[in-house]
């Protein structure tokens, strides 16, 4: 059997092994290649970067077990970014599971916080936890926070939280960051906060949902959007904080290139083999 034939009938397990290496290598040794920043991500980042120190922003944490690996790293970097700029953050979630994952994001961000940044619970940030009721819950929250929440996620009464002393409705926030994950909840924010209160908003969703939200971006209701792991990675890249998302996005590079290489190789070999057969 010629080498050509052997290569054409390559044992599939060799391909699997190569794929494992191609996908695991960049995770262990993050190689950061220059990356084109997508327009929507750049707009979203610049929007976050333009928030003045001292203002209070609202973050909806909608990442769950399935979406946290892609969105979580981005959210963590954003928390570091905003707190580092002296911006105060109020968190909430519209799901019970996602409220718990938001705690994870806050904890990881605090651990990664550069020293000297003020990041005190209740003063610089507060996590209000789960707000039930879906879109109507968001509406109630936007109109009167105290009507839906009497204590924060950890059980501290709202009256004892200094950050919330002068905050009770959506118009008290400078901006909204909606980390919707795969919840499909970004329109809730647009309909219940952006439109009635005029608070500017941006957010994050999974890659496949990006096309659904482009109309909102074109109409100016949404200031860009971060899509999937690539969106998170671009945030890390722009912050110069290479982390899990950047590693993951770069890892798709190697896998994708290997895939493309194998397909092209398969075709070249196929045509050579066919020509040889034709000659004989």
């Amino acid at each position, binding site marked *: 059997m010629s080498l050509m034939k052997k290569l054409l*009938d*390559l*044992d*599939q*397990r*060799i391909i*699997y092994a190569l*794929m494992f290496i191609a*996908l*695991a290598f960049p*995770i*262990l040794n993050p190689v950061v290649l220059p990356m084109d920043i997508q327009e929507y991500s750049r707009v979203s980042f610049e929007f976050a970067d333009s928030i003045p120190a001292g203002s209070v922003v609202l973050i909806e944490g909608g990442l769950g077990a399935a979406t946290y*690996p*892609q969105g979580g790293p981005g959210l963590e970097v954003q928390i570091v970014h905003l707190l580092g700029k002296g911006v105060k953050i109020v968190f909430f979630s519209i799901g019970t599971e996602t409220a718990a994952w938001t705690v994870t994001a806050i904890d990881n961000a605090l651990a990664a916080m550069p020293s000297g940044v003020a990041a005190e619970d209740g003063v610089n940030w507060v996590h209000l936890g789960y707000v039930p009721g879906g879109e109507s819950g968001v509406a109630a929250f936007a109109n009167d926070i105290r009507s839906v929440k009497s204590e924060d996620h950890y059980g501290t009464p709202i009256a004892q939280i200094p950050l919330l002393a002068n905050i009770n409705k959506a118009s008290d926030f400078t901006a909204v960051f909606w980390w919707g994950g795969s919840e499909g909840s970004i329109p809730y924010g647009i309909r219940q906060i952006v439109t009635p209160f005029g608070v500017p908003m941006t957010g994050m969703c999974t*890659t*496949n949902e990006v096309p659904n939200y482009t109309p909102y971006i074109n109409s100016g209701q949404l200031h860009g959007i971060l899509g*999937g*792991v690539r969106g998170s990675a671009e945030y890390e890249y722009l912050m110069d904080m290479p982390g*899990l998302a950047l*590693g*993951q996005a770069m*890892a*798709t590079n190697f*896998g*994708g290139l290997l*895939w493309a290489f194998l397909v092209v190789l398969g075709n070249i070999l196929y045509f050579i083999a066919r020509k040889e057969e034709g000659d004989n």
Partner: protein
Amino acid sequence: MDSYLLGLIAGSFVSIGAYSVLIGDNPLSKFTEHLYMGILGGFIFATNWNYVRTNAVNPVLQGNFIYIIAILLSVMLFSRLKTEWLWLSRYPVALTVGAGLGLAIRTTVMSDFLGQITATILPLNSLDNILMVIGTVTSAAYFIFTAQTEGPYKYVNKTGRIFLLAAFGVTYGQTVSFRFELVIGRLVDMLRPEVANYTYLMLLLVALGLGYGYRTKKIKWYKGR
């Protein structure tokens, strides 16, 4: 060791077991298969048991007797355990198929049939629009069963096929990238600094075990094709 770290390690080990299926049928993949099936079976049993209890049994206990019908239909399913009574399960099937097909038909005619037609009605003033109309028409006409593949219809059929294949190619490419993200997500958890050493140890043990098995021919090695 706390339950969080223990969970990560357990997750890493069972993932290795799951990935071992890539080699072909082997004892580790068989073990993981049965373990997974058992856990998942138990999970499905428990959650559905709970669902039936809260949504059918409890309403009846609270005096909502119409749910007795649901319980009765559910019990009929168990006729499966005796072949002569199999026909009893046709009643619950009638309910699900009737309701399901009815719901499918009423939405498909609006969103799929009329919706796609309306979206394709485009002014023929650009190449893109013209291609869109031609592509949709020919690929819909590809499925005309009463037309024989000869005469002018042959060309319609061939054109439709090209558009369908382009659509399949795009989906193939798009899925590839998304699937890589899935492996990467799993690997990230398995290769976390606090777990990585356990993962490597497990990999080593598996490699040694399987290697020994294959060398001594105690495990069947499937030839690659």
